[in-house]
């Protein structure tokens, strides 16, 4: 992939993530977009295109919700698109903003990710029933927790990993989140707390999983020339990658996400990265479940297959470690408003790379950060790499 035009990230913003927020979807989008514009020091006037990412319309009960949310996202009288790739949307939205600028068709693109899961009654979980195949799977009463539990079981079986090893991730991330001002689920818990928590769909227990949330986050991407007018030390978009596997998730061995390896390689190629394990300084990988952080570390080749739990036990993935993973607190700690959660990770890359992460700032000096999200039926991954020169 020959890159045509260099693209930078110049601002980020996000709202609180909570189980139920009073603000409407439009208002949440506005708040995040407003903060991102303020953070970048520009006004909406300079923005010529907007991309919104938001997950199923079923949560809001609004068809074409991209259109409905467009004014909140700052897209009034602008070029506007909504992209939607399931859970991977939050990291895919800035990828989409990247090509708006890299293609030359736009100079400043506002990327907003919003999710309001709470309107769906009695529980947002219900929307996930409608993602399953209407012939083979819905009649069984399938829900998203089942598919994760099946994958978790397979991953554990393939490498002989114990639940306790996986639980460490929940402990780490919820602790990291204590320093995130927007966090919904920050807490000081122990592995024992996780093991004792209520079984949901075994081996998934309550503290292994992030619950539904409302929230929004946004970033501003722009051309290098524009960025240099705003700051002497802009942060660059170094690599973008995305990949989808077949819909037949039951025909795969779920222990390893091949689609993530492909997405990662696409981004690494663009960024000129040959050895991710040494060239990526820190990463925000998608962690709706604790085992997912490990699964994704391996798919991204940040850990050898089956080795991610060992790296966690050794403390390598702590903020003070050699390869900090999810210094923000991740979805497990900050919350999981589907699309906004992925974007929150991209915001974290921006804060870490510009030394604005406060108490979350990782110990080592960082130049290259990676954000990744997963989506669909164990099918999709989006990868976004940012670099400070």
């Amino acid at each position, binding site marked *: 992939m020959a890159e045509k035009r260099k693209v930078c990230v110049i601002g980020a913003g996000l709202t609180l993530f909570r189980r139920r927020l009073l603000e409407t979807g439009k208002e949440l989008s506005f708040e995040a977009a407003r903060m991102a514009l303020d953070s970048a020091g520009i006004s909406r006037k300079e923005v010529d295109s907007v991309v919104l990412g938001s997950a199923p319309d079923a949560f809001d009960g609004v068809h074409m919700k991209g259109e409905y949310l467009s004014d909140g996202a700052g897209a009034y009288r602008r070029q506007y698109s909504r992209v939607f790739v399931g859970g991977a949307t939050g990291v895919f939205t800035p990828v989409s903003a990247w090509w708006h600028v890299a293609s030359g068709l736009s100079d400043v693109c506002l990327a907003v990710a919003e999710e309001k899961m709470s309107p769906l009654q009695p529980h947002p979980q219900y929307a996930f029933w409608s993602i399953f195949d209407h012939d083979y799977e819905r009649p069984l*009463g399938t829900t998203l927790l*089942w598919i994760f539990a*099946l*994958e978790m079981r397979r991953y554990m079986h393939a490498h002989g990993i114990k639940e306790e090893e996986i639980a460490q991730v929940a402990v780490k991330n919820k602790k990291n989140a204590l320093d995130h001002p927007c966090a919904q689920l920050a807490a000081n818990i122990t592995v024992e707390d996780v093991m004792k928590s209520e079984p949901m769909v075994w081996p998934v227990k309550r503290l292994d999983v992030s619950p539904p949330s409302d929230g929004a986050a946004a970033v501003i991407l722009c051309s290098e020339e524009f960025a240099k007018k705003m700051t002497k030390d802009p942060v660059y978009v170094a690599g973008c990658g995305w990949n989808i596997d077949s819909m037949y998730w039951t025909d795969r061995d779920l222990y390893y996400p091949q689609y993530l390896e492909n997405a990662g390689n696409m981004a690494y190629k663009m960024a000129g990265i040959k050895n991710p394990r040494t060239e990526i300084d820190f990463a925000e990988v998608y962690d709706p479940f604790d085992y997912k952080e490990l699964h994704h570390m391996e798919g991204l080749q940040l850990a050898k297959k089956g080795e991610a739990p060992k790296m966690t036990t050794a403390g390598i993935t702590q903020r003070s470690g050699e390869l900090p993973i999810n210094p923000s607190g991740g979805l497990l700690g900050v919350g999981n408003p589907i699309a906004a959660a992925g974007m929150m990770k991209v915001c974290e890359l921006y804060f870490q790379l510009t030394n604005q992460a*406060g108490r979350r700032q990782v110990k080592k000096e960082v130049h290259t950060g990676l954000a990744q999200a997963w989506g669909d039926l164990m099918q999709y991954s989006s990868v976004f790499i940012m670099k400070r020169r």
Partner: protein
Amino acid sequence: MSEKVKYFPGKEIRPEALDDGELLVTHYNADLKYSWASGVAVGRFLSELKNGRLIARKCNKCERILIPPRIFCENCFRNTDEWVYVKDTGTINTYSVAHVGTDAHRLSEPLFVAVVNIDGASELMGFLHLLGEIEEKEIKIGMKVQAVWKPENDRVGSILDIKYFKPIKN
């Protein structure tokens, strides 16, 4: 930025506020109905289920026997070539014990769910279903299982024509 920003927007609502009158709530029931055309592949699969049989499709190029059956091979990107009946026995690829249902309510009895790789189809080919006549502690990956069908008169051409898969006891 997070150091300089003192205020992060968002007004949290207490869970009870929806019921106890603190908030005005409008309800809307969206009852959307669809009748999806199954198409050739799924249609045949479902009608064979009514007959108490599992059917798959073969791609002669990559020689995979595909279940659920499909009219095109996604690896080779070409039409698949023939129908192949497969067995109604298989192996557990992965499994789980569900204590919650679709809208997060707790189930009175846990459900055992599994991906079953079907005998006669290619490696790793299978589908999602339930397990029955089995104790939780007996379930293992790699275990051999057998479909338990509904009686012929009760079968309608649905994945539920199979009640569940039970262990094959030697």
